[in-house]
């Protein structure tokens, strides 16, 4: 099959993702330096909050969305062994989303949209920022549509057959993203845009926060699913093993997608506009969504253990040492799982309803999500890139050893940066300050931790630069060697037979999600229309 367009689509999307990533890494290091207050010349709240807003948008929206789209297109075409459906439309989505990014970047970089990536009305940003963010989302819906069409077409052409796991996960993620982004899209279309354009004077802040919370939790699963997909479909093969259980993998993806949606209120635990009963309901759901992660840990570690034993590892832990640690995919999952264990532990604290008061909006929270997103998730984006780059560019990877160094330094840097960040949170440091000006002795105890964070950030920045260097060297290097590998997906340890239809279908889960969303968000949203609420006028910042 001539897959030039597919390879181009994947490369273009991923380059946008990784360019956004490296720019945001530089901003991250600037921010950790600025907020420490160690270098007086850097002190500038205006610059800091513009940078934080841009860093958040680039990492959370651009890196993720573009990576997921690019990876998704290539996964669909290679796992189903068909060309991408409607390539013009796919390119249209790419350019639309890119236009959105550029429109949003202009006000962000000029300090006209320092409202953080979470928007936070009634502080108002430049109109172009909201327009850009909306276009990025609409562009990503094109990808969702193409994934779902390809999934359904394949099922129709292959009745009774099992959709490849990689495609099943990708399509579930596309459906998840449609549901997830609906919340922020509603906020944008009905609240933010009319208000930013000046068609209405005021905004219902409680409703805006509720709609954003709809998006805010499942969006992290949208980011995480490609990493889990690699856990299941790439890692076993690279380790020289088998996928332990395909059924468990499918069940994990389904529970992740279905239960990540109706639980967004754990972001509103401390908010006065929602009642405790709804918060508790969402809190219980939050623990349900921990289950597939526990199951994923079991299934992928089982695959690794089989690999270790096949390679001659003996004893209770001996198999760990005999794993192929020099394979980037294997090394990255080991490091990813380590960060998942600690990040998951922090997440359980955040999820714990009233206990959240201890760490809400403290430095603990960015510590947590850097560990679990920038750590657990992004390290898998790296190894997926290392795996796909030779296939997409038809050139061998520039240096496997440097890639291993890059993964290790990312892990070490992330550990050095996020551990003190968590501690700072427990010591009461708020998350979103650009300097420490509280005239209080307590803040002296924060300083050594800030110093550690700066060093962690430096290691991370070096690692990020090395990553980009390796991709550039691989793709544009002067080698004449041709790489001829193709994407290979893991085989299952237990052959899959008699797969029930609910593990091979998205439609039924779509209905389940609709019911759960109605139950968990119906009244909490409707209440704003029968409560006597007072809207806010727009404020600068």
């Amino acid at each position, binding site marked *: 099959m001539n897959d030039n367009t597919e390879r181009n689509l994947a490369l273009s999307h991923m380059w946008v993702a990784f360019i956004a990533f490296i720019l945001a890494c530089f901003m991250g290091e600037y921010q950790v330096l600025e907020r420490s207050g160690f270098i007086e010349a850097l002190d500038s709240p205006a610059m800091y909050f513009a940078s934080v807003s841009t860093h958040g948008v680039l990492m959370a929206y651009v890196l993720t969305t573009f990576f997921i789209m690019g990876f998704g297109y290539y996964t669909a075409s290679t796992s189903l062994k068909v060309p991408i459906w409607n390539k013009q439309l796919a390119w249209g989505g790419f350019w639309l989303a890119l236009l959105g990014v550029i429109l949003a970047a202009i006000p962000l970089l000029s300090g006209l949209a320092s409202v953080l990536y979470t928007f936070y009305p009634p502080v108002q940003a430049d109109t172009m920022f909201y327009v850009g963010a909306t276009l990025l989302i609409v562009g990503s819906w094109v990808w969702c549509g193409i994934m779902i069409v390809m999934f359904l077409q394949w099922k129709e052409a292959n009745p009774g057959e099992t959709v490849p796991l990689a495609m099943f996960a990708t399509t579930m993620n596309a459906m998840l993203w449609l549901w997830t982004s609906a919340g922020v899209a509603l906020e944008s279309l009905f609240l933010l845009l009319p208000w930013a354009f000046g068609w209405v004077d005021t905004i219902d802040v409680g409703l805006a926060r509720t709609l954003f919370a709809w998006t805010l939790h499942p969006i992290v699963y949208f980011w995480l699913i490609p990493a889990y997909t690699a856990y299941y479909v790439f890692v076993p093969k690279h380790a020289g093993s088998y996928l332990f*259980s395909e059924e468990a993998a499918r069940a994990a993806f389904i529970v992740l997608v279905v239960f990540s949606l109706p639980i967004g209120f754990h972001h509103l635990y*401390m908010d006065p506009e929602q009642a405790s009963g709804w918060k508790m309901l969402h*809190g219980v759901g939050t623990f349900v969504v921990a289950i597939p992660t*526990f199951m994923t840990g079991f299934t992928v570690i089982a695959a690794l253990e089989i690999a270790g034993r096949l390679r001659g590892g003996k004893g209770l832990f001996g198999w760990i040492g005999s794993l192929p640690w020099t394979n980037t995919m294997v090394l990255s999952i080991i490091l990813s799982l380590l960060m998942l264990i600690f990040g998951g532990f922090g997440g359980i604290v955040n999820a714990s309803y*009233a206990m959240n*008061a201890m760490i809400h909006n403290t430095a603990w929270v960015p510590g947590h999500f850097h560990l679990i997103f920038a750590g657990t998730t992004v390290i898998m984006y790296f190894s997926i890139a290392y795996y796909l780059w030779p296939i997409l560019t038809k050139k061998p990877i520039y240096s496997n050893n440097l890639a291993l160094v890059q993964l290790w330094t990312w892990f070490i840097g992330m550990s050095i940066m996020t551990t003190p960040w968590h501690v700072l949170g427990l010591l009461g440091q708020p998350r979103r*300050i*650009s300097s420490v000006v509280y005239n209080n002795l307590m803040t002296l105890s924060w300083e050594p931790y800030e110093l550690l964070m700066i060093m962690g950030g430096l290691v991370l920045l070096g690692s990020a630069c090395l990553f980009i260097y390796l991709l550039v060297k691989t793709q544009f290097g002067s080698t004449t060697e041709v790489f001829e590998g193709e994407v290979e997906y893991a085989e299952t340890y237990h052959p899959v037979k008699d797969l029930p239809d609910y593990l091979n279908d998205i439609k039924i889960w779509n209905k389940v999600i609709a019911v759960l969303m109605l139950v968990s968000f119906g009244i909490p949203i409707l209440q704003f229309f029968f409560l006597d609420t*007072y809207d806010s006028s727009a404020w600068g910042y």
Partner: protein
Amino acid sequence: MHIDPLEKKWAQIVLAICALFVGILMIDALFHSVNAPSNVETINSAKLHLSEEFAEDNLGVQMDEKGDITVRMVAGRYSFFPKKISVPAETKLTFRWVSIDVLHGVHIPMTNMSTMIVPGFVAEIETSFPKPGDYPVLCNEYCGLGHDHMWSKIDVVEKDQWNASQITTKGGDEK
């Protein structure tokens, strides 16, 4: 469909772990009233100065006839008002927070006095401080470029000492 016996065992352990956590949280919430601040009470943030409750004279620490203490605070860029208050330790306090402008958050470090302050709503939270001391009151939600400077002070004093000061000064809040 194949389910490995080990997998089944692990699934049961996982369910038990999650049920344990949820169980503890629910017992605390339902039987010990350990809840997140969630009173869903609206107020017109633009007219706080005209409201009876949050008019200037009424802010700060107040004890009613029954001896219950309510602390009324206004958050506005860039401070919490009154800027310094004094409360007794080991005493149930009801905080009522409102915003005069944008979104704020408030946290008194090392305590569970934490809530978002959303314009249009009153955030009510009950707590008590076990340890006397000078605590900062920090804004923990980005509210504008001066956000770093948004903080105030709270003195938590021994119960007896606080009660004694009430008799001499009448009305516990320092303005």
